[in-house]
């Protein structure tokens, strides 16, 4: 239902409107000067070649018969019908910028995880932004330089770009799915709430009816009160059950929510650093019954402690003391008398077992 005014009216409107330039770019086609006032359904199209806007009628008229020059004064770009589309933004400069950004973003699609630290990522971001800025606002030389850089980067990082693109698509897909799931869950909850309210209402009506019935039957007041109480108790119990059910379901939902966190890459854990090599794999040779002091002295060896001649051969006083202590203590815990009794050549374990046996049958032995 186009409301095209007759041509006569149109000309008068134009002549009687002195404030033509004040009309916004949204209001008048710069090519054919049709105004929105005359054609409510007027649509503006642009071509990303030069971002000059014109109404759809002009596009049809000019480009139906193949490529043609842009009708804007001073613009000599050759445009095709296919390239025209409606602009998303009102400000065409922003539209152009976003188009450029789309191209840049397809190439520079590195993620924060790809960088060693935040600063490197930020520097990268700034570099990209600089490049984009040059592409958008720079003069010819800047633009060309930026363009070259862009292509160079693309050639250099082809594999990475592909990979990130794929990952990005997947992430998008996932986030979309999650949003949809959330919406669905919200809808479900709403429905549940409505149903709950409905049920409650019905329950109340039922109780009321039961009460009326009992009244009609002429039951005593006390039984009626009981009936009412029972109804209330039922309702309370039900509500409680519902509450726990919903609470558990909510807990479940939140569990699910926790599991489905997107965008958090499962970071590979670095293998724990191996400790120093342990040839014996377990046993410790640190003395347990005593500690070796560093202040131990020996009157005869005292002089040799710092003697270069001795030390050059590898002698160390500490080793000597450690050895001496070990020898001194290694005999403790061995009861020679007992061993003699039991016969020499038994291992320590046997000795212990035997001693225990002796203790147990001590009385008998005495008798013997």
């Amino acid at each position, binding site marked *: 239902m186009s409301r095209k005014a007759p041509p006569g009216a149109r000309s008068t409107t134009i002549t009687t409107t002195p404030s033509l330039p004040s009309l916004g770019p949204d209001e008048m086609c710069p090519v054919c000067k049709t105004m929105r006032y005359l054609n409510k359904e007027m649509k503006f199209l642009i071509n990303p070649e030069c971002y000059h806007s014109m109404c759809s009628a002009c596009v049809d008229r000019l480009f139906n018969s193949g490529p043609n020059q842009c009708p804007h004064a001073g613009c000599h770009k050759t445009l095709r019908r296919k390239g025209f589309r409606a602009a*998303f*933004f*009102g*400000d065409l400069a*922003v539209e152009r*910028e*976003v188009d450029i*950004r*789309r191209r840049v*973003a397809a190439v520079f699609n590195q993620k924060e995880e790809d960088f060693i630290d*935040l*600063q490197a*990522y*930020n*520097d*990268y*971001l*700034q*570099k*990209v*932004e*600089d490049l984009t*800025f040059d592409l*958008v606002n720079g003069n010819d030389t800047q633009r060309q330089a930026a363009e070259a850089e862009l292509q160079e980067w693309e050639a250099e990082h082809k594999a990475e770009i592909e990979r990130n693109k794929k990952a990005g698509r997947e992430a998008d897909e996932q*986030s*979309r799915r999650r*949003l949809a799931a*959330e919406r669905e869950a*919200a809808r479900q*909850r*709403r429905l549940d*709430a409505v149903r709950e309210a409905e049920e409650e209402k019905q329950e109340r009506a039922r109780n009321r009816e039961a009460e009326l019935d009992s009244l009609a039957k002429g039951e005593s007041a006390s039984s009626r009160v009981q009936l009412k109480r029972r109804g209330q108790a039922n309702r309370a119990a039900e509500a409680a059950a519902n*509450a726990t059910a*919903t609470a558990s379901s909510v807990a479940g939902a939140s569990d699910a929510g926790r599991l489905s966190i997107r965008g958090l890459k499962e970071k590979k854990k670095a293998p724990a650093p191996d400790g120093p090599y342990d040839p014996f794999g377990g046993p410790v040779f640190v003395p347990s019954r005593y500690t070796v002091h560093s202040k131990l002295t020996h009157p005869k060896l005292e002089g040799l402690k710092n003697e270069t001649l001795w030390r050059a051969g590898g002698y160390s006083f500490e080793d000597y003391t450690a050895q001496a202590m070990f020898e001194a203590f290694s005999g403790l815990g061995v009861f020679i008398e007992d061993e003699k009794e039991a016969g020499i050549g038994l291992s320590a374990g046997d000795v212990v077992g035997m001693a225990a046996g002796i203790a147990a049958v001590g009385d008998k032995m005495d008798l013997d």
Partner: protein
Amino acid sequence: MEFFIDDLRVLFPYPRIYPEQYAYMVDLKKTLDAGGNCVLEMPSGTGKTVTLLSLIIAYQMQSREKRKLIYCSRTMSEIEKALVELRNLMKFRADRLGGEEDFRALGLTSRKNLCLHPSVKREKSGSIVDARCRSLTAGFVKEKREKGEEVETCIYHDNLDLLEPHNLVPNGVWTLDGLLRYGEEHKQCPYFTARRMMQYCNVIIYSFHYLLDPKIAERVSKDLSKDCIVVFDEAHNIDNVCIESLSTDITEDSLRRATRGAQNLENKINEMRESDQKKLQDEYEKLVQGLRGSDDCQQEDSFMSNPTLPDDLINEAVPGNIRRAEHFVAFLRRFIEYLKTRMKVRQVISETPPSFLAHLKEYTFIEKKPLRFCAERLTSLVRTLELTNIEDYQPLQEVATFATLVSTYEKGFLLILEPYESDTAEVPNPILHFTCLDAAIAIKPVFDRFSSVIITSGTISPLEMYPKMLNFQTVVQESYSMTLARKSFLPIIVTRGSDQASISTSFQVRNEPSVVRNYGNLLTEFAKITPDGMVVFFPSYLYMESIISMWQGMGILDEVWKYKLILVETPDAQETSLALETYRTACCNGRGAVLLCVARGKVSEGIDFDHQYGRTVLCIGVPFQYTESRILKARLEFLRETYRIRENDFLSFDAMRHAAQCLGRVLRGKDDYGLMVLADRRFQKKRAQLPKWINQEIRDSETNLSTDMAVSSARVFLRRMAQPFRTKDQEGVSIWNLEQLRIHQKKMQEDLILELQAEQEKEVAAAEAARAAASGVGRRVVEEVSDYEMDEDDEAEMMALDV
């Protein structure tokens, strides 16, 4: 009077005390000792403020660590009132203790109320005063002057720098007026005096916003220490204050102005690049380092403010793609253009922040992270550019705040785009509401930071609703009843008109002539019998208008006119204040007046109708909110899903708290009296949701009345009230002097002792039983011991052996 609660010496500046005041103090002390939060409801007009102050000051003065008190109230007049109370209290304490204490208290309010600059203070609008003040007092203005440039500064502000920074005013309680006078005398700026002295004060009194609105709180209340005692007085609306502080509306006009702001910003950047490249470079370097916010951005004159950001973000470096000034401006532009495009849609859209961000990213390649830093980055840029005419950038700031909020919070917020103002409108006027649904978000920092938060009001029922909605734990939740020597107020519920038809303002019947006539009759009848002033509350302006015009047609207004002057509240503040003034004059002279007003309007909150100014309050209809609003609907849904508060419960709670506020207007003290008439069928069931002190006084015989019955019982009540009433009659019942208080304390102690004894006995019995069940040997020993009748020491020894 002076008395002790446990070991706390309380000085109360009046010779007598109400029993509920004492109970309030006891509970308050319990809370402070335990170091937790509490919700307390105390009837209006029973001296809540002075009770609070005298207990907390006593507590403060006695304890060693001197915990600071932050007292938040809602309006200027309440702040001023609290300051005057505090001054009286401190004077009393000085008299009693024989010397002034080392004590300082200040009130803080906006620049507009505290300005002394001869030309700035003449400005009408608060934001202009703010802007002009900043242009005179900003840090770089001073720097410039030091460099010898010719710039205008404010002498009042400059004088402050000559004083000792921690001693700008002497000790004492400074009311707002007092501060202004002192400032004039000593030629120093009262506003900055108050701001800078906040750290050195024992008590700060200011409005809710200074603590709840993250945009202001970060600047004003940042340095307050953790152990402060925070009090929210008149807090029945606190959830709405929280929500409002985090919600923004964006219109096409504001976007247009934001674009202009961005353009100006760009020009400025270009200018600066030519003149002073170094400054931009410095800023850039700083941002690279991530030193943002470390040094000078927290100064008091910082221009713009930022919404709450998590701490980890504050310390992070600004993302690389908005580090450079020109990049950031281009970024802002893109965002604004995107919003403009979204506003062109002609259907209602409501979406969550994540879905908004996803769409945004798809079309503009704006990521979430730089968006989060938007407000912060803008602040930094504005500071670097040394802009003074800040009001030009206000819309830009709004957009930046919106950007930060939308990218910071995933849950608890909703974007609602309404292209038309009403359902019937033809011309689109799109508004993008970014609305906060969760009151707990704004108040969370307060609960996290301060150990004791006290929420109190005259009408804060049901008490358990508030901890639920604001998501916090309480130590004490208490509602006090009003002790009265005579029944000085009469709440009645009228459900039927004189023709026995039920009356209600529910949507289906509100415009039926019979209902309207019945309400009219009710009004006429009460206008006949009420002495002096009478206040009538309607649920909304719209309904008030329609019902008044219908009454006019029915001749009801003419009838009322015979008995009283009729005055009406309007949305316009000036007109309303004129109406109020006339009303007061009329109440003091002749037969009084009827004030018709709205339950959610200005009159219903904060204006007292004490004594002859209000003898009857008539509440026509339950003041429900407008339920068709999309924002309200979203909030209801959120409450149901997150806090399990059902829609109807919340709506009815909200309506009843407003009704209670209205009712509380007439009773402002114990020697006051008044009628409270609730005229709606639905009040009958909602009775239990009224505050305890009102609900207690409703007798069953005074509910479910018809108009004529209500009138006859009101007559009886008014006749009784007309009898002489001496203060002496109240003593011992609703007012205690010191002796009576002592008696009460003694009794309480005895009760406590009895209780403890009972408990002890129980414990002993339990222990006995446990021992009896223990080994037989032990038992034998004990029995032998008791046979020998040893004294207690030996018994204890034996028991030790036994173990």
